[in-house]
């Protein structure tokens, strides 16, 4: 059985074209120190505020004295989620800001290659921001996130998958609706922040909200991280559930992005980059 022509053609991925797009974003980062500094600035500020707050609380509370690192770990995991999505969406927004999207869409670059380049850049931008921040956490608070070992890799993969799913939907909406939807890139993740239980367990949520929390993969990651730090217990059941949900959401997000691209072609918004 052969695939329909557009699908077969869309699935032929060229690493060269993905590389060309990654190169384009690296050129951009290299040309702008403010962009690079911004990648480090906000995560570092957030880490310092929460880290010192944890110090203060730990001095006055037996629980937090035992739970050293849980806040800092949460802050850093949240940053992986938020900055991962921001890295994806902002790389896409760069094309809108520079009115370059039409040039890309008439080039041989396939949508799936574009998505892959955005995924790579999300990790690159995240690394630029998070590696220095993780060193600050060691230096200031004695919290070594790399001490989580293999669990860190599993947490990271789950969080980055969620961030890409959200980034895909945000980018698709901006592509279809124009720059009027730009603010979604900064706000979308905060919409789910209260429910994914970054700083508190899901059990504190009202019962009716808990089903929603457990429908979102990051909840499993944050619960898993707390289990590891507080109880020294790695929970593979939570990670498997998170991966399953992430796989489903990621597939849906790609479908949504492609549907929004088709809609953008229908309403003619690929030629316009304004509001």
């Amino acid at each position, binding site marked *: 059985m052969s695939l329909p022509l*557009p699908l077969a053609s869309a699935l032929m991925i060229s690493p060269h074209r993905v590389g*060309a797009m990654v190169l*384009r974003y690296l050129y951009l980062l290299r*040309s702008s120190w403010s962009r690079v500094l911004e990648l480090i600035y906000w995560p570092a500020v957030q880490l310092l505020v929460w880290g010192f707050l944890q110090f203060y609380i730990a001095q006055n509370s037996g629980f937090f004295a035992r739970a050293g690192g849980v806040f800092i770990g949460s802050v850093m995991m949240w940053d992986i989620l938020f900055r991962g999505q921001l890295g994806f969406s902002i790389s896409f927004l760069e094309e809108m800001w520079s009115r370059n999207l039409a040039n890309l869409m008439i*080039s*041989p670059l396939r949508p799936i290659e574009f998505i892959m380049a955005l995924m790579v850049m999300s990790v690159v931008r995240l690394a630029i921001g998070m590696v220095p921040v993780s060193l600050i956490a060691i230096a200031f608070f004695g919290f070594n996130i790399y001490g989580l070992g293999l669990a860190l890799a599993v947490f990271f993969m789950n969080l980055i998958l969620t961030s890409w799913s959200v980034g895909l939907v945000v980018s698709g909406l901006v592509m279809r609706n124009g720059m009027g939807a730009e603010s979604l890139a900064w706000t979308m993740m905060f919409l789910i922040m209260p429910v994914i239980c970054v700083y508190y367990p899901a059990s504190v949520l009202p019962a009716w909200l808990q089903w929603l929390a457990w429908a979102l993969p990051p909840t499993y990651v944050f619960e898993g991280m707390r289990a590891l730090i507080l109880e020294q217990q790695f929970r593979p059941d939570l990670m498997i559930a998170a991966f399953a949900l992430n796989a489903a959401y990621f597939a849906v997000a790609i479908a949504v992005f492609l549907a929004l691209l088709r809609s953008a*072609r229908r309403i003619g918004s690929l030629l316009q980059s304004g509001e």
Partner: protein
Amino acid sequence: MTAQEPAIAVTDLVKVYKTTRAVDGISFALPPGSVTGLLGGNGAGKTTTIAMILGLVLPTSGSARVLGAEMPRQRNRVLSRMNFESPYVDMPHRLTVRQNLAVFGRLYAVADLSARITQIAGELDLGEFLDRPTGKLSAGQKTRVALAKALINSPDVLLLDEPTASLDPDTADWVRSRLERYRAERGATVLLASHNMAEVERLCDRVIIMKRGRIEDDDTPARLLARYGRETLEEVFLDVARGRGEAAQGTAQQAAAQQGAAQQEAAQ
């Protein structure tokens, strides 16, 4: 695409945006190696037509084929052989000219890319600002860079949307001469949307005049001038735009019908 097949074939093409018929059932076929001007006032449907040919906009009905591939369904077959330039589409401002050309060259899988960049920089006089950020260039320099990007893959089909808009006469003339040279060297098919009648007269061997999404007239510049009894395409354009061309067009259609009948007779 067979030897006889048009490079661009548009058939009964319609685009409706909500309640607006931007393009209203147009058809034309451009032979390989031809240069065709798409004339029309603002809102005539030129840019939408070009966008549908590029696969950027989905037609409501009808079809646009490029080098035998239906757009946008089969676009991946032909996008590497096409390119596009418009003053309304920019390139990343912070990247240098060389970086931009390198990125697009890679996207188009241009062989021996650094040699190609050097070559095109020489042809389009980009050498002095090849390593400057694209956003820091003047409008004329940006147009030359956009043209370099449009020619980086030596396209067989080149679509240009007002390529000399907002340029001073000297730079505009320079751009036209480079386009003439490219067409002569490469034998590419060029479709050019423009408001500049002198440009169309100079570059195009065929002119399609659009008005409110429809084709009002379609012929060589010389025949259009003769038919409307005018000396410049600008006058022809104004006749069409102001509806004064209908009488002339009626006469012209009669003449075209007579010419067709004569050709048929000769063929028999």
